[in-house]
């Protein structure tokens, strides 16, 4: 027989054990979950960044037959492939003819621009038919107008380009004569170019590129009826295809040997940029056609042996493969996003090419190398990813990384001496009581929000330093000298009058004299400036060395961010220094070394790894600090080494641009790449520092153990 109390006791124990297991399970599960969630940051950023480096691809998606006899002569397709225009001027769809646009001629050439420009049809009698668009960019077929481009000969090729007020349509006839129609407001003017050409391409602002054999000429058309030849150059092989890319500042030239070259308009549009760039060739047969896509400065190049390549202006060849049959295709149309090309074969087969290259503009070269961007004449590292309209985005992360490191470096220049000095002082020269008071004060400093420091530095200190630049620089010299002078003075006075040091530390006691030194330096600086620098240091610097001065600059950010990282540096360095076994210092002193000798030869070397890890952690903080840099630097992504110019850091760039960036776009992912860089950098630096600290702690423990 069992005692009921024992039974209940047993049940109770079982319950307790269950409870124990349950609780342990819950703790373990949520603990692991939390740790995983925290570590997920790195994983998420990596996953979000990876698509940037996906290979581009062109896929032939669907093939269907346009069930229409007339379609064999199709010269134009709507971008969904549902309507087409036949050579004899009928607009048709699968059901039949919708409208007839041309009566007694055939269509020989088509040019289609963006949704502000008309559809232009070049006719065999030298006329052009212009189909206008409504506000939404849809073609209004019923309002097609006619204009005469050539007197007798038929049109052979057309090219459209945009100008400030409207558009310009250039054409070439079967004989090679070139003429253009300039549209400004409601007026349409005809201009003739006194030259013959085999290929034509229209850029922005009336820039026309024409080629004849190996000669490439850039013309400037203007609405007053005259054209001027701006530049004539010879290419290496006869030109077989010409096309301007989106924006109309970059010309792609394909030649008979299969080479592709890029020619860029110079910044003033008056000629070409000094150097042409050549791209990886598809093969050695002639380039037959260039199809410029309306986004990201992409284009498709087709050569005579049926090869096709997808190129990007800056990052070069992104994909190559076989083109669908029929080179060149009779009719091609591109959707507004540049992701689909409708392609009509000779036998009436309609194919859709899907261009999967959302981040084609990003490559190692565009991120890391200096490039010559549109509108610039030299190769530079530039960041301007948030662009509007047809501007070329500039995707180099180098200026941002430079700005980050520059700001952090200057912050370290200010913070390291101050924080290490303070740590040395409190570890070696302060009594335990004084230290116990100082530490919380410095910890409070650490709690000061960056936004407050940044606001004071940006709105109060920056204008002040701008007015008193000389004074600020004098301060940097005066403060150390002044403090040593104070020490000397103190010694003189205490010898003379046998004054006793009051029971406050040197550190606190120096505050008032140092404030006086600062004030004196600032009030003396105008005279100094007048005496040496002709009254204004900034002007003098500009004249002597060509240094610009921006109000918000690296000097200010160094001071502000330095102040923000001093507490971190101080606490860690102080911890390392005060952990140095006292027996070592005492031994050194007992052997007759002075305090300074003990400090430099014993304490600092022993604590060096700890101090190094403090510096590393401080640097990590400086690199990631956002608000101070955002408020104090002016956020100009410059690559200048000057102390007096602005910068933009990765972190500040995230705060500025990420809220506006389209989710999933190239810009968005590049910003995330910036965040990933920050994450990896700080994580690596901190891990290293943590490992150094851990080893140091072990070493100290050994010392103590032996003592």
């Amino acid at each position, binding site marked *: 027989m069992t005692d009921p109390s024992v039974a209940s006791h047993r049940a109770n124990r079982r319950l307790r054990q269950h409870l124990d297991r349950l609780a342990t399970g819950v703790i373990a599960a*949520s603990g692991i979950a939390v740790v995983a969630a925290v570590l997920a940051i790195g994983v998420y950023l990596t996953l979000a960044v990876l698509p940037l480096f996906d290979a581009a691809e062109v896929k032939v998606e669907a093939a269907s037959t346009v069930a229409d006899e007339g379609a064999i002569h199709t010269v134009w397709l709507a971008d969904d492939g549902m309507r087409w225009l036949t050579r004899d001027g009928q607009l048709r769809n699968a059901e039949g003819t919708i409208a007839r646009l041309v009566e007694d001629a055939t269509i020989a050439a088509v040019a289609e621009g963006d949704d502000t420009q008309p559809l232009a049809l070049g006719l065999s009698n030298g006329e052009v038919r212009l189909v206008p668009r409504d506000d939404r960019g849809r073609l209004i077929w019923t309002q097609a107008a006619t204009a005469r481009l050539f007197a007798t000969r038929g049109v052979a090729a057309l090219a459209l380009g945009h100008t400030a007020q409207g558009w310009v349509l250039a054409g070439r006839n079967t004989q090679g004569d070139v003429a253009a129609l300039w549209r400004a407001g409601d007026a349409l003017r005809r201009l003739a170019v006194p030259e013959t050409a085999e290929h034509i391409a229209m850029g922005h602002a009336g820039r026309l590129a024409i080629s004849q054999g190996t000669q490439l000429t850039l013309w400037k058309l203007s609405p007053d009826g005259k054209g001027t030849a701006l530049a004539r150059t010879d290419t290496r092989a006869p030109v077989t295809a010409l096309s301007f890319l989106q924006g109309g500042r970059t010309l792609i030239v394909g030649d008979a040997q299969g080479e592709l070259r890029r020619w860029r308009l110079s910044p003033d549009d008056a000629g070409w940029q000094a150097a042409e760039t050549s791209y990886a060739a598809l093969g050695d047969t002639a380039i037959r056609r260039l199809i410029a896509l309306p986004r990201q400065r992409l284009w498709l190049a087709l050569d005579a042996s049926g090869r096709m390549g997808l190129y990007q202006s800056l990052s070069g060849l992104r994909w190559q493969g076989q083109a669908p049959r029929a080179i060149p295709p009779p009719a091609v149309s591109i959707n507004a996003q540049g992701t689909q090309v409708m392609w009509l074969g000779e036998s009436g087969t309609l194919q859709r090419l899907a261009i999967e290259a959302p981040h084609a503009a990003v490559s190692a070269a565009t991120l890391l190398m200096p490039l010559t961007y549109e509108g610039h004449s030299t190769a530079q590292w530039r960041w301007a990813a948030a662009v509007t309209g047809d501007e070329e985005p500039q995707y180099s992360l180098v200026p941002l990384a430079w700005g980050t490191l520059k700001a952090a470096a200057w912050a370290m220049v200010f913070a390291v001496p101050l924080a290490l000095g303070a740590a040395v002082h409190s570890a070696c020269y302060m009594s335990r009581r004084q230290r116990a008071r100082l530490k919380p004060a410095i910890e409070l400093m650490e709690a000061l929000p960056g936004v407050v420091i940044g606001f004071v530095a940006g709105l109060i200190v920056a204008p002040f330093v701008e007015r008193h630049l000389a004074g600020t620089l004098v301060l940097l010299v005066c403060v150390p000298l002044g403090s040593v002078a104070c020490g000397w003075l103190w010694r003189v006075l205490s010898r003379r009058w046998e004054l006793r040091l009051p029971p406050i530390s040197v550190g606190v006691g120096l505050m008032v004299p140092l404030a006086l030194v600062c004030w004196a330096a600032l009030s003396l600086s105008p005279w100094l400036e007048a005496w040496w620098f002709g009254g204004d240091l900034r002007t003098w610097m500009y004249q002597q060395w060509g240094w610009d001065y921006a109000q918000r600059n690296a000097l200010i950010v160094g001071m502000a961010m330095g102040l923000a990282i001093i507490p971190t540096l101080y606490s860690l360095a102080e911890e390392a220094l005060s952990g140095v076994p006292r027996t070592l210092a005492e031994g050194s002193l007992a052997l007759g070394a002075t305090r300074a000798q003990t400090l430099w030869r014993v304490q600092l070397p022993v604590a060096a790894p700890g101090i190094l890890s403090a510096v590393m952690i401080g640097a990590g903080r400086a690199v990631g600090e956002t608000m101070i840099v955002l408020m104090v630097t002016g956020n100009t992504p410059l690559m200048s080494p000057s102390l007096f110019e602005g910068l933009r850091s990765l972190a500040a760039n995230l705060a500025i641009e990420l809220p506006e960036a389209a989710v999933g776009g190239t810009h968005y992912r590049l910003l995330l790449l910036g965040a990933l860089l920050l994450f990896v950098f700080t994580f690596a630096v901190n891990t290293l520092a943590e490992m150094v600290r851990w080893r140091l702690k072990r070493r100290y423990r050994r010392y103590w153990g032996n003592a």
Partner: protein
Amino acid sequence: MRIPRLSGDGVWRWLSGACVALSLLAVVALLALVVTRGLAHFWPADIEQLTLDDGQRIAGIPRGSQAGERRYFTANRDLDGQVWRWVEQQAIESRGTPPDLLYVERRDWGPFIGRLTAVETPAGERLQGAEAERRLRRALRGDADVTTLHLRNVEGRSLKVAFAQVASLSWPNRMDIGDKLAAWGHGVWRFLSETPSDGNTGGGVWPAIFGTLLMVMLMSLVVTPFGVLAALYLNEVARQGPLTRLVRIAVRNLAGVPSIVYGVFGLGVFVYGLGGHLDSWFFADRLPSPTFGTGGLLWASLTLALLTLPVVIVATEEGLARVPVALREGSLALGATRFETLRRVVVPMALPSMLTGVILAVARAAGEVAPLMLVGVAKLAPAIPLDDEFPFLHLESKFMHLGYLVFDLGFASRDAEAAMPLVFATATLLVIVILVLNVTAIILRHHLRARHRALEHS
């Protein structure tokens, strides 16, 4: 007399002392600047009336001088098109503080400086002179009604202001020190309790205070249990080995990861990921305008919780590690299970250090602005996210934040110069909140260490 030489020892002593002094000096100067300018904002300064040598008359509050010129805050943006005047010192013919100069804070167009000519009552009466003033004072107390104020600036241009437009009104030149103190207190109270007006350059910051507090509270609700559980797991449950050490180092390092990176994570995972899905599941009828798929209170709190998780974990672990092994072993030897030992012995002893961790986390969260800029802070959101409409607490709404207000007022406002006093006041408030939190944490930790020391020695 022999001049004593400063030895190498002395040089280092004084140089390193100077480092301490300079660091402290910088912080003290910064705090002093922020706090004095912030509190001075509410002090009703005397208004000066100047007559210049060309006969022009100006009334304004002197605010600094530079290179022989004095700067006056002249208000009256609607009359003059500007609120600041630089006056050459030599050009000033006479200067005085006439007692009848009036300072009106309006809900639109900013403050007005000038004189009162008349008031209109609802009955259509038009009172002038001393009677008008008496009536106005009574109206301000709520004893009488006034519809319109007729005002005149010192140049003689007149202006009508509806009484409803008046936020506050005073004759600073007539006030004695007691009145001014009272007005100062009133100003501070209005700053703390009112909603912003006039493009954030006037009024108070109550929504920002409330937003900051609410966000921080939600954050600590999330971070406390999870942080403590993770610390318990790492310290008490997981087997101690190289892996736990690695995890511990990783967690510690996450405290050093830039806060903006957490913001990016919050934006990508919480706002666009979770929020986007929530929208498509529950709020599909409101799309494409997002409900949870845009920055908001909930996402901001979660992001900051993640950001402060390492702080709580590290502090709690420290506390747990300090609990003497003997106590645990004693409890286990008496037959308690591991969970009971945790619940009855270990956790109560580590409680204060957990609290310290949470307070430090709150202090850090209250001062963080960068991640909030990505996950839901708003420039202006006068409606607080807590009201009497179901579900009472609007987790998806945007909120205002003191730190962001400082940034926004100082760097993105129409007239940064005019907003400056308010920025200082807001910064003061923020600094005070954060300092109080930190001091609490420091004191708590101090007591804690003392207690543990006693425990270890006993």
